[in-house]
């Protein structure tokens, strides 16, 4: 029998990736005067993924 039966609860501050799943992938989308396109946001996510991969490769 393992000691850990319960799901591990992550009580640390939210990880950046978990946060970005929610902040870029969800939430009310209100087109502001400046931020106009949803397509732009999707592009940002793609570029972000490429960026983080680069960071990890370097690390």
């Amino acid at each position, binding site marked *: 029998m*393992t*000691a*850990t*039966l*319960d*799901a*591990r*609860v*992550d009580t640390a*501050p*939210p*990880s*950046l*990736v*978990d*946060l*970005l*799943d*929610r*902040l*870029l*992938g*969800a*939430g*009310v*989308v*209100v087109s*502001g*005067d*400046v*931020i*106009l396109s949803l397509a*732009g*946001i999707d592009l*940002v996510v793609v*570029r*972000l*993924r490429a*960026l*983080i*991969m680069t*960071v*990890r490769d370097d690390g």
Partner: protein
Amino acid sequence: MTTGTYLYALCRPDAPQPAVRGVSGAPVRVVREGDVGALVSTVDLAEFGEQALMANLDDLSWLARVAQEHDAVVQACARVTTTAPLRLATICSDDESVRERLRQLSPAAVQLLAQLGDRQEWGVKLYAAVTVPKSGSTREASSGVAYLRERRDEIDRRAAAADAARRQADDIFTCLAGVAIDARRHRPQDPQLSGADAPMLLNASFLVEPSGLDRFRAAVDEMAAALPPDSLILTGPWPAYSFVSMEQL
């Protein structure tokens, strides 16, 4: 400097002024219009204007800082009142423009806030217990036919493992959705992003009422008990980030 008004979340018009700083340390205030309020702060468009923003969003340290500052405001507000979080970097030209938008959003926003009430979001991530072996065999294939057979067997094994993983993720999602008010699936995080060795099979959010939290937690624990340690991760409570969709507004 040319400024804009950065929006964090929608709230009720009687929401108290949160005692928290916003992006770049700016004070946060509530802009009210009729039955809806918005948590906002003033930002410099040299940093948050359309051109600057596109460049800044490519800068991971900038993005991390703003995401955390945004989240801190939403969390502080969600602790004291019903909060409908807005997507990162929603910016209007000024407060009057915010009020104009609130007029357009009401009454959908009023209805949304009433539905959210004091419900909270919980995140559940499932990681694969074992990774599929890279190759079925390390020995040299004795012939072309043997090689092709091994290739085919490996493809079959991978397909079966992927099927089983998908079913497991679907089962867990369906079961937890049954004890939650609402449920959403996010795209599983790439191992390079999550930092975990094992592939992520499920990345989901569940909207849970305070009175249903014990039942939800019990369901998660029951599932975790049947899985290898640390393969099921619960995060939260989160503000209801994943349950405020644009179809509702």
